């Protein structure tokens, strides 16, 4: 740590040298009485308007209005007369640069070995827009942005409880990213909060660019494909989780927050579930479970039934399937894998390509994969149907980690079924269940409330009771369980 000098030129030069004469470092020198004053700021992150409107004006006005004769305590005078709401006194170079990079303007006064940092941040975000990854029909549509304060604001706006805490930790040696542990003090388990805080504080990494960086430091280190944390960009989801007693991690510059702990059922639920009629929600949830099973098992069961366990297929269906396969040159396993990977590639391209080229891709994808391959006899029509059902069902879920986990497990299912038939599928299902049951994060079982089974928690698991009947919070998340007053 290097303390500031008392000569403004030395300070300015040191800052410039520290940053290798970067082009966005700007300074403005003026003289009040006989004392030299300098303002230094980074043009790229500061607002010109704020600097000229507030800072410069207050600096010059101070002198004029006060008719200052003695300039001995000019530093204090300036400090007390600045119009900006956020000012800080800085004493060393590292701190000075950190504030410059955060959009502060530093006022240096000749002969003082400290400086005043004034907030003159410019808006470098795209504003609050509709959520693109978690679209819903009914309910609030706003989503988090890259701006940390806006994100915090979107939560504060919804929960005006003094117990809602935002504990900030700076992570990243170079990026110095603000990571905010958010929770409601009297609901969330303090033990869990402390554990998470400890883990985040112990992170020693050069940079954090997204909440995805943090997530890897928080989990148990086991290789699990299924995500342990819900990652959401919807403030209403975050607030719902906070009210349930969960802990949310906001990371500066990332619209995606982490909700801890995540359970399997969280990925089946959607925030919309709470805005619609309960009976319909229950139905939708069963539909999602069905989609989960379909997207996981369909290709595997198809392979098992057509290559090993043909005796399980009804006569007329088997004959129809067999005739469809007459011209196909590949084994069923290869056929399914080919088409599945073609779809995955198509999906990946669709994400990466600019919107203007989207139509071209869908035309090529639909025509080449759907029509031509079948007509050429390379792929049987039934496999196209199977892969379509699988893919469409997989898109029911919004969490990309969850979708990818399903994709990975699907592959395992496909291979075991190709080797062992229905027995292989059964064994894989058992392995999956064992894996899911043994998962646990921050003392919450991953399959709660199904395994271990809690009858009283079933009101908001698959079955959704009307909100007026949901009297208590899940007990595996919190001890303060009263949700509904008498």
């Amino acid at each position, binding site marked *: 740590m290097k303390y500031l000098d008392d000569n403004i030129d030395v300070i300015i030069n040191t800052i410039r040298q520290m940053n290798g004469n970067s082009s966005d470092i700007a300074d403005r020198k003026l003289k009040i009485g006989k004392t030299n004053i300098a303002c230094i700021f980074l043009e790229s992150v500061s607002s010109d308007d704020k600097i000229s409107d507030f800072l410069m004006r207050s600096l010059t006005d101070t002198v004029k209005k006060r008719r200052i004769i003695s300039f001995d305590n000019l530093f204090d005078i300036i400090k007390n007369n600045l119009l900006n709401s956020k000012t800080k006194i800085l004493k060393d170079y590292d701190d000075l640069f950190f504030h410059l990079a955060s959009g502060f303007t530093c006022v240096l006064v000749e002969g003082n070995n400290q400086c005043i940092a004034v907030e003159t941040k410019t808006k470098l975000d795209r504003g609050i827009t509709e959520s693109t990854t978690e679209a819903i029909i009914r309910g609030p549509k706003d989503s988090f942005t890259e701006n940390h304060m806006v994100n915090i604001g979107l939560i504060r706006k919804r929960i005006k409880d003094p117990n809602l805490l935002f504990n900030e930790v700076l992570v990243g040696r170079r990026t110095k990213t603000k990571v905010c542990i958010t929770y409601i003090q009297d609901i969330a388990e303090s033990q869990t909060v402390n554990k998470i805080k400890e883990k985040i504080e112990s992170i020693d990494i050069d940079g954090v660019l997204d909440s995805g960086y943090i997530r890897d430091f928080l989990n148990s280190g086991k290789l699990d494909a299924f995500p342990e944390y819900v990652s959401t960009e919807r403030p209403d989801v975050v607030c719902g989780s906070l009210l349930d007693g969960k802990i949310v991690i906001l990371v500066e510059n990332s619209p995606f927050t982490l909700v801890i702990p995540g359970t399997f059922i969280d990925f089946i639920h959607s925030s919309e579930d709470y805005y619609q009629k309960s009976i319909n929600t229950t139905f939708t949830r069963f539909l999602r479970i069905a989609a989960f099973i379909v997207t996981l098992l369909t290709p595997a069961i198809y392979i098992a039934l057509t290559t*090993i366990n*043909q005796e399980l297929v009804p*006569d007329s269906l*088997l*004959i129809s*399937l*067999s005739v*469809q396969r007459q011209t196909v040159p590949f084994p069923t396993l290869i056929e399914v894998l080919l088409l599945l990977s073609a779809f995955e590639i198509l999906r990946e391209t669709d994400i990466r390509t600019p919107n203007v080229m989207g139509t071209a891709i869908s035309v090529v994808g639909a025509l080449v994969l759907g029509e031509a391959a*079948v007509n050429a006899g390379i792929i049987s029509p039934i496999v196209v149907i199977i892969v379509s059902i699988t893919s469409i069902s997989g898109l029911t879920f919004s969490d990309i980690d969850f979708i990818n986990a399903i994709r990975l497990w699907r592959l395992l299912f496909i291979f075991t079924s190709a*080797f062992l038939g229905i027995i292989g599928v059964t064994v894989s299902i058992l392995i999956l269940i064992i894996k899911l049951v043994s998962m646990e994060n921050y003392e919450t079982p991953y399959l709660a409330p199904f395994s271990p089974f809690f009858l009283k928690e079933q009101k908001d698991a698959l079955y959704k009771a009307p909100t007026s009947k949901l009297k208590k919070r899940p007990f595996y998340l919190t001890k303060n369980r009263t949700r509904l007053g008498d």
Partner: protein
Amino acid sequence: MKKRLIIILLLPVLLTGCWNYSELNEIAIATGISIDWEDDKYKLTALISNAQKTEGSSKEGEAQITVFEGTGKTMTEALKNIELKLPKELYLKHISIIIIGEELAKKGVGNILDYLIRDPNSPNKFNILISRDTKAGDILKIISPLETFPSQNVSLMLVTSAKFIGSAVEISYNDFIQTYLNQGINPILPSITIKGNEKKGEDQKNIKQSEPDTYLNLSNLAILKNDKLLGFVSERESIGINIINSKIKQTKIHAKCKGEEEDSYIVANLNSLKTSSEITKDLKIKINVKATGYITEANCKIDLTDEKNIIDVQKSMESELKKTIKEALEVVQEYKSDVFGFGSKYYKRYPKEWKKLKDNWDEETFPNLEYEIKTDINLKTKGTSNKTIEEVYKKNES
């Protein structure tokens, strides 16, 4: 340690080498098999259902049937001879019917059963039929206008017949094996025959006509003793046998009108037929049939609103039903083959007494059993009209 564990866990999966793996386009799916006895050899006809249609078909996945024949001294040899003619593996697990030729049935079907029980690749859920007055192989070749596959056609005929008419009955492989192996019961089998010219029925033209030249027709029940065919009974007797065996739920019954010319009938559809039959220690059969039904046709001059008339109709129907059952029972007793399983019932209740009767049951005891038949019909509705249409017509005229 962990690596070793993974390898050990992977071994059983990878070393199995795709046990009984076969691609769908590499198997020839047989859906029906017929077995004849010709020149002291088995003649097998397999109906292959997944040949691709070559001409004039635009729809993907439309199938055509083909028939392959093979002869041999044993079932296995005959099957092998069929496989020699096929480019694909013969797949037998989806066989839904097996048709046994009349000649072979007279000779005995025990050897076929042995193959079916023993071979792990043999089919295990199918219906058995006997072909009557025709070669079993010809039946598989007849193309039906309503169903694409002859085998499917026959199984569906069996189902509908057992459901609505009651003269045929579905006898699955399991039923047959059980009755064949159990003491004191003999098997029955449905029979099937061809109406019309056999050669014409093999042609696709047959189904393009509005009135097909040739079609399959379910015939009456065949009575077997152990594994040998004894003979066939009439349609009425078939229904009677099925009622006693409680194999059917529905049948139609005709009753003559009281005090009228001969050819006017009142007809009822009986449903929820319930039969309870038992045999007493002193060898007396008691058969009790209960049924509810509704009138489907009434050509008599009676007033159906009058409860007395309904009771009269019920009574005449009860006696008609009793007659049907009695005839069936007597015919079977003449055949000296206990297809009702009274012997087996007796064995279960009185095992000690059974030991004495066991050897001569079919020959002596069963044909001379005394019986007592009770029928109880309850007509629930009179259909949609109270009076016969003729009466209404006359009333309007006068």
